[in-house]
């Protein structure tokens, strides 16, 4: 004899209702969102006025009263009421390419074009993932060869004068390319059954997360050579890059571990029951799901890695920000620091938002795929 559990749910068919009518049009929008009550109306007016005034001021400063061109000594900007964008026209080569030899800066420009171009092509997603990744590898290697030179009649340029945006891209690319695989390994190692592996991974992650990036780079660039035998000379850029990779991997590993823990045990057990080995299980069952979950958090780390490239100025290299800072010390242009920093802000903002937009599109793709799989 069975008793049906008592249910709070209504039994029988539910009555059908038409969806609520939402008023459309400009008037309805204004009424609902901007003037839905007297207080709301006042708030809209006050805030609207504030925004309008601020926007007008900004426009006046940055466009109406701005000076776009000035002779090399900045004289045209002295009496200007608005922004002096001439400072960018004067200094953009230093800001974008640092102390890289002036005659050779087309190489840096080509590197920037390669990265932006392939970034745009990748974002359309017309090509397969494998092709896109292979393309990035080619872009990365080509950038290094192009900047370094020393072949085909290209003048050799030491890494000590690399700078600006090309350097930022290369550091960033190296950090992500080296850091992501390392992060996956660290995350897996931290969950490993083998105590030695687990200990090494935990020690690395916790140790690196416990020190500031600046100290890590300082150590890698300046102190480390003292402990290495003199015949083992590794380029400073590579030493610091390794520091960046380990730093990035330690943070990303914890993000990925979060993804691994979100995968139900049953998945792993089911794969085991099918007779799959550890690496096959991890590669085909666990990781694809785990990585899809952590995409938003991972892009957080990736964007931060891009911004962390500014720390490379401690090595004596001119990254974009460092080059801007140095360029703006010029006594004839030193008054226009705001314009210089705004330019750099815009540069970073555009690149970082592009990455962020790309991250969310991957996320949407994953959701679409998951919905399709569930159907």
């Amino acid at each position, binding site marked *: 004899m069975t008793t049906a559990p008592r249910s709070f749910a209504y039994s029988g068919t539910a009555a059908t209702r038409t969806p609520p009518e939402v008023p459309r049009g400009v008037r309805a929008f204004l009424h609902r969102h901007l003037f839905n009550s007297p207080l709301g109306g006042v708030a809209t007016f006050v805030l609207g006025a504030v925004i309008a005034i601020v926007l007008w001021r900004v426009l006046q400063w940055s466009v109406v009263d701005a000076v776009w061109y000035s002779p090399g000594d900045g004289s045209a900007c002295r009496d200007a009421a608005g922004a002096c964008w001439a400072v960018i026209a004067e200094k953009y080569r230093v800001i974008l390419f640092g102390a890289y030899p002036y005659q050779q800066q087309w190489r840096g420009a080509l590197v920037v074009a390669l990265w932006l171009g392939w970034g745009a092509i990748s974002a359309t997603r017309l090509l397969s993932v494998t092709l896109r990744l292979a393309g990035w590898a080619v872009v990365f290697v080509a950038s290094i060869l192009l900047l370094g030179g020393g072949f085909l009649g290209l003048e050799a340029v030491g890494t000590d004068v690399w700078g600006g945006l090309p350097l930022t891209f290369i550091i960033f690319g190296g950090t992500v390319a080296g850091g992501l695989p390392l992060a996956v390994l660290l995350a897996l190692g931290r969950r490993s059954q083998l105590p030695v592996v687990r200990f090494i991974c935990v020690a690395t992650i916790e140790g690196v997360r416990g020190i500031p990036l600046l100290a890590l780079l*300082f150590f890698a660039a300046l102190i480390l050579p003292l402990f290495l035998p003199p015949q083992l000379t590794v380029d400073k850029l590579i030493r610091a890059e390794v520091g960046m990779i380990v730093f990035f991997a330690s943070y990303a590993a914890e993000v990925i571990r979060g993804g691994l823990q979100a995968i139900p045990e049953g998945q792993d057990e089911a794969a085991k029951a099918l007779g799959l080995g550890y690496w096959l299980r991890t590669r085909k069952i666990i990781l694809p799901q785990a990585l899809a979950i952590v995409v938003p958090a991972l892009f957080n780390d990736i964007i931060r890695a891009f911004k962390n490239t500014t720390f490379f100025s401690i090595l004596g290299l001119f990254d974009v920000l460092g080059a801007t800072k140095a360029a703006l010390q*010029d006594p004839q242009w030193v008054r226009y620091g705001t314009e210089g920093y705004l330019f750099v802000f815009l540069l970073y903002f555009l690149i970082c938002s592009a990455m962020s937009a790309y991250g969310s599109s991957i996320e949407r793709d994953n959701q679409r795929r998951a919905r399709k799989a569930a159907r």
Partner: protein
Amino acid sequence: MRNYLATGLVALSALAAVCGPAGASTLDTVKKNGVVTCAVNGSRPGFSAVDSKGEWHGIDVDTCRALAAAVFGDASKVKFLKTNNQTRLTALQTGEVDVTVANTTWTRARDTDLGLDFVSPTFYDGQGLMVPKALGVKNAQELDGASVCVRPGSTSERVVADIQKKFGIKLKLVVIDDQKEINTAFFGGRCDVAVQSTSGLSSTRAAVAPNPDDYVILPQIFGKDPMGPVVRQDDPQWRDIVQWTVFTLFQAEESGVTSKNVDEMKADSKDATVRRLLGVDDSGGKGLGLDPAWAYNVIKQVGNYGEVFDRNVGKDSPLKLERGINAQYTDGGLIYAPPL
């Protein structure tokens, strides 16, 4: 906080430098590398900075170029490493650079504790205080309770501590790491007093102040700021090379040898000092391990001290500094080279 960290790291690297293996002589390393590697500040126009084309200019930069001219006979064989106050000496200790010429003030602590040696200063400065005229302050004693913008780890920081003790006044420190930010803070009214070398103050006032007449530099000069090249202590030969390259610049000015007239002087000067300076008689190159024409190359390619001063910080530069105590000793300054 970052400052303590940097101090700790500098101490650690000093320890490592002492324990580290004694390598080849610096001159050999420099010759092997084919360039003189030089740590400079990189953000001090007039001393070391890049122009709009990414090329280096400044007194410190020219000192490095002179060194390259002395060693290689080619002033362009020099590599610059941009450093900040925390890394400029560490880079030298670890062998990353061969010489540091980065506005480093010669102090006893730096000379004796770090395994480094200072050679003859190329620029003498002192610290001064700048205040807004509206404050109505006439001297430092009246500054009790004022806020002061200083850079961490700089000489200014110590000068501020000394002033407080000396006059029994209390100052509020606003510590900012970047000179540009300090300028913004000071001219924006975030602090009442700017402390910097007097040369820095006058150029800041001329270039950055909204209205230079609104600011006064107090008459008192605090401390001494002799700034010049720094080398590692373990290589007397290299130290001599750097030292005498600097003296060559000094002596050339005293003897009236310039980059323009150096060839004529070499051909027909009867002056014994000039003949020794330019290697007509004995150039001293052998003792230094350099080419006999080393000093000639320095003057020909870089110029004498007066030329270097004028084009970088003096009358031909935007900074327009007076020679002041940086004049030749014959004009009442401190620039003095021992006899050749």
